[in-house]
């Protein structure tokens, strides 16, 4: 109970210390930063048990902090990723300026996310939500690139989402007289029909923005790619999950209570499906790794949203499992991009190629996370995808499953592009000096990749807390019904057993690897990527054999009609229109004294004319 308060106090003290003492000395700053994360992480993992909480009053409103089994799942993601990306950040950001600000802000974001998860009432939820918004905003603009465009877009959408949420909170408060989430859920059936529809929609708008649900996603590509990668690892991995967290609560505990509320879930699920498909197509088109991963994040969040919006036990398991997995592999990938960018100075596929021999460990981490992302067994991504498909079939969403399948197949395209773009292909002279990223950066990546592997074989490890969280939300326990430690079942009782698959895969792979290399390993020699046969000719040294421009063009040509319309452009034109309108209102104050005098007279006349209706 006090542990929650202690955690917050440590966070605040750590933030302040990192900021102010961090100005003195870089090492001290890093130590303080990591110590704060470690201390809070330790306290969280040892001292916090679900169902502990405190209550207090502000402005006469009762508020409470505590943790539920459901928020515990997300808290694991947040704390875990914060620790690992924190370690990564210390090394990755080494040479940047303004680091005390960066690290303090980093801690602030982590604190706000934990706060969101600890909040049992809507007001503190909203407060932490907003702290998260502006602290992440400062990270988006931290690099100083595209500040007015990307940054403002992010804060604009966040503000719209947050205020939609605030509106709902205010309605809830005035109707029930309490802001406790529990009271709200209990009393929801007393609301009138109009409110019953309005409140979930407003809340979902708020959460939809953070979880980058189309059409509220337009901030995400810019924001994800603009922040320092060590932060984006957490931004995309953990922060976006806050939207999912809220969305689950709204969809399961609140929408369930509306008569015909089923439709909200269907619409959200479809929006998730469209998000997944469109974002994947856009990801394929990107030439910048950060942008690509950003779109990929949007797409992956789309899957998660489909899962939680369908809301059957299996779908919910799938959604939450994928949320955890996405946190793991997407963070790793962003870290990989960060490492590549740090070592080469660019994150563009068209510039960097052939790093595999220079950065083998980074490549390994990237490979594992890409396999997890693509949903290929035996890594964890497969479990989530499998459960999602099965749940969609079990709940009769046939077109949605096609949509999801399309996007996850199309995702192979960008998965390959990512690995090929950075690590494979021609080894250019330009990058011959590149070295492996420092161990402090590589180890967090590898740890995360290891988790992706582990969860693929033993999904039960994370399905257990998920199951407990779902029981808290009112689901019947799914243990042994949908999952065991290493087996997953679908609605019809069919199962996939991961262990033998894993043995066979490893066995076959190792066997053939040995078969291919055992004799030749000493006798064969490595030759450069220039030493190849291109239609029987031996290419000259200066010949450019790098293939990265227009990588997926044939595919993009095939899907061009779908990608012609871009919602971003509509927003931009709306924005421009509004700015023009506001420019007009600005001109109401002409700066001319005579006009003002005229206004004065006109105002009297108007008041006199409308005195009956105004007074």
């Amino acid at each position, binding site marked *: 109970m006090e542990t929650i308060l202690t955690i917050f106090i440590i966070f605040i003290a750590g933030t302040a210390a990192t900021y102010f003492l961090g100005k003195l000395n870089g090492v001290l700053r890093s130590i303080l930063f990591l110590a704060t994360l470690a201390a809070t992480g330790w306290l969280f993992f040892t001292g916090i048990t679900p169902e502990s909480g405190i209550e207090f009053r502000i402005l006469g409103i009762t508020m409470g902090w505590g943790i539920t089994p459901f928020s515990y799942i997300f808290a694991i993601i947040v704390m875990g990723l914060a620790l690992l990306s924190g370690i990564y950040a210390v090394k990755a950001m080494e040479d940047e300026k303004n680091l005390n600000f960066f690290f303090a802000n980093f801690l602030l974001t982590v604190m706000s996310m934990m706060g969101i998860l600890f909040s049992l009432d809507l007001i503190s939820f909203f407060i932490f939500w907003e*702290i998260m918004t*502006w602290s992440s905003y400062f990270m988006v603009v*931290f690099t100083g690139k595209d500040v007015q465009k990307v*940054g403002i877009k992010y804060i*604009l959408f966040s503000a719209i989402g947050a205020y939609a949420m605030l509106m709902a909170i205010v309605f809830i408060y005035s109707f029930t007289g309490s802001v406790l989430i529990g009271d709200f859920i209990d009393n929801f059936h007393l609301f009138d029909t109009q409110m019953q529809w309005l409140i979930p929609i407003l809340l979902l708008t708020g959460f939809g923005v953070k979880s980058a649900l189309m059409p509220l996603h337009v901030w995400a590509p810019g924001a994800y790619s603009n922040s320092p990668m060590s932060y984006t690892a957490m931004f995309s991995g953990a922060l976006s999950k806050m939207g999912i967290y809220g969305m689950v609560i709204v969809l399961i505990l609140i929408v369930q209570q509306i008569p015909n509320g089923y439709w909200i879930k269907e619409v959200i699920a479809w929006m998730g499906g469209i998000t997944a498909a469109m974002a994947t197509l856009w990801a394929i088109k990107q030439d910048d790794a950060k942008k690509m991963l950003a779109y990929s994040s949007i797409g992956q969040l789309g899957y998660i949203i489909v899962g939680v919006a369908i809301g059957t036990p299996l779908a919910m398991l799938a959604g939450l499992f994928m949320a955890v997995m996405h946190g793991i592999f997407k963070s790793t990938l962003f870290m990989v991009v960060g490492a590549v960018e740090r070592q080469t100075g660019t994150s563009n596929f068209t510039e960097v190629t052939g790093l595999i021999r220079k950065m083998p460990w980074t490549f390994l981490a990237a490979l594992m996370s890409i396999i997890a992302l693509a949903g290929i067994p035996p890594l964890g991504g497969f479990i989530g995808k499998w459960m999602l498909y099965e749940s969609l079939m079990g709940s009769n969403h046939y077109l949605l499953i096609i949509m999801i399948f399309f996007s996850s197949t199309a995702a192979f395209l960008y998965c390959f592009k990512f690995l090929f773009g950075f690590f494979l292909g021609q080894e250019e002279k330009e990058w011959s000096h590149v070295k492996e990223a420092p161990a402090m950066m590589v180890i967090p990546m590898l740890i995360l990749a290891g988790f992706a592997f582990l969860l693929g074989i033993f999904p039960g490890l994370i399905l257990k807390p998920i199951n407990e969280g779902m029981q808290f939300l009112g689901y019947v326990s799914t243990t042994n019904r949908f999952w065991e430690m290493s087996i997953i079942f679908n609605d019809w009782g069919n199962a996939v057993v991961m262990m033998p698959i894993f043995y066979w895969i490893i066995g076959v792979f190792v066997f053939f690897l040995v078969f291919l290399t055992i004799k030749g390993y000493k006798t064969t020699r490595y030759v450069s990527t220039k030493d190849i046969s291109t239609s029987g000719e031996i290419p000259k040294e200066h010949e450019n054999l790098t293939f990265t421009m227009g990588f997926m063009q044939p595919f993009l040509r095939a899907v061009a009609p779908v990608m012609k319309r871009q919602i971003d452009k509509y927003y931009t034109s709306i924005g421009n229109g509004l700015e023009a309108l506001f420019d007009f209102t600005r001109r109401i104050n002409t700066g001319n*004294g005579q006009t003002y005098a005229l206004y*004065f007279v006109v105002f009297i006349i108007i008041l006199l004319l409308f005195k009956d209706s105004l007074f």
Partner: protein
Amino acid sequence: MVGTPVFLIAIPLLAAFLIPLIGMIWKESVRIIPGLVLAYMTVLSASLYLFILENGTYVETIAGWQAPWGIDLVFSPLTGLLATIMTFMGFIVWLYSYRFKSNVEFEAAKKYFIFLMLLVAGSVGIVITGDIFNQFVFIEIVGISAYALTAFYTGRNSAEAAFKYLIMGSLSASALLIAIIIVYAQLGTLNMAEIAANIDQMNVHYRIIAMIFFIIGIGVEAEIFPLNGWAPDAYTEAPGPVGGAFSGIVVKAGIYAMVRMMFTLFDISGPMKILIVIGLVTLIVAETSALRQEKLKRMLAYSSIGQMGLVLVAFGMGTKAGVFAALFLMLNHAIIKPLLFLSGSFLTFNTTEKYISQITGMAKKMPVVSVLFALGALAISGLPPFSGFWSKLSVLTAAADENLMLIIALVLIISVIEIVYYFRVINRLFFFEYDESVSVKPHKPGFNGMIALFILAGLILLIGFYPASVTGYLDLAADDLLNTHQYIDKVLQLGQSIIQ
């Protein structure tokens, strides 16, 4: 007790008379004496305020003439709170500008500090007086000092701004006078309590006409649309701290006058459409205009106007919650907006145009001031955990209690706009590279100015993290405003008991 309410007005007037004389002997006195006076006023109003919180509303009659014949000063939980805020802000502005104007010559400094002091005194007068004609006089005092302060830089632009202000001020004064005449002709009294007690006897048509003229008369000071055309110019052209004083002190007095008129004088209970409509229009026009401003202070001015619109909307709901929210907003605005003006004028110190583009990358050169500016910006746009959030939240809950959904939606949309333009400035300040060719030369902020900024920032954080520190006082003030009968009783009983 260190004095009675009348000292709040008498001492600064006396000091204003004496300062030029003392200044002939001791030049520094023109800076120091106003500060001492303002400090005294702060202490006085604070102690009076604490006194009345314990002992109930304090009514003071001037020169032994009892109400309703004489002029009385009412120091109630509401007026006391506002007077304390105003005097305190006056002191902060003085603290800030103490060295700020050290580079200007003696004459200019003399005028500046005297008028600043009078501005505060007049505003306090508007708040604590219980007599409408007396209020009119104070409005004029404030007006005259404000014109003079606007024209402080004696350039073409500031003269023009002051002149526009003067035009609007004079027009409003005549409207106010008309209103007072109508009321006096109808009821034969100028005492607020007396008017309030007898308002039913007034012909309903006259009543509405009087109300309209009151609104127009006070509206210029309260910066309602469309009578606020002077404000952006005046805020922009006046020295930075004066902008802070305008937004922190003068507007509050204007709003108070308008609200007192509506709530007490004309004893309207329940929602007041006129305030809501005016407030909303003011809010929307001002905030949307702010989005496209190129000058920092102009943007802040529009933001200030917009906030006042929101205050009027909250008052217009006419409920306890609404009044509470409005007062909370006023309090927060009185703290935050001066912080923005003061830190903003440090940032733009070495430019006369004060374009937003000129502070590009300034955070690299003036980190502390920039952080404080950002703090103010975050707070005013209502982001938690800073003070502005709580007031915005109370406005929204008050509106939700009355089921005013449209207002909630509009207020939130406007808040989004607010966030956008403030964040544009923050971006420019922090996340752009400092560019010699665009940005102005950084100015080394003075020690006293920094103390003033830190006090304000500390208050923002205090209220943000511990809103309960002020809500109790605001609650009492809201009760006080809504309880017209108590006001009438307090003021008139005193008079009657002595007459009998």
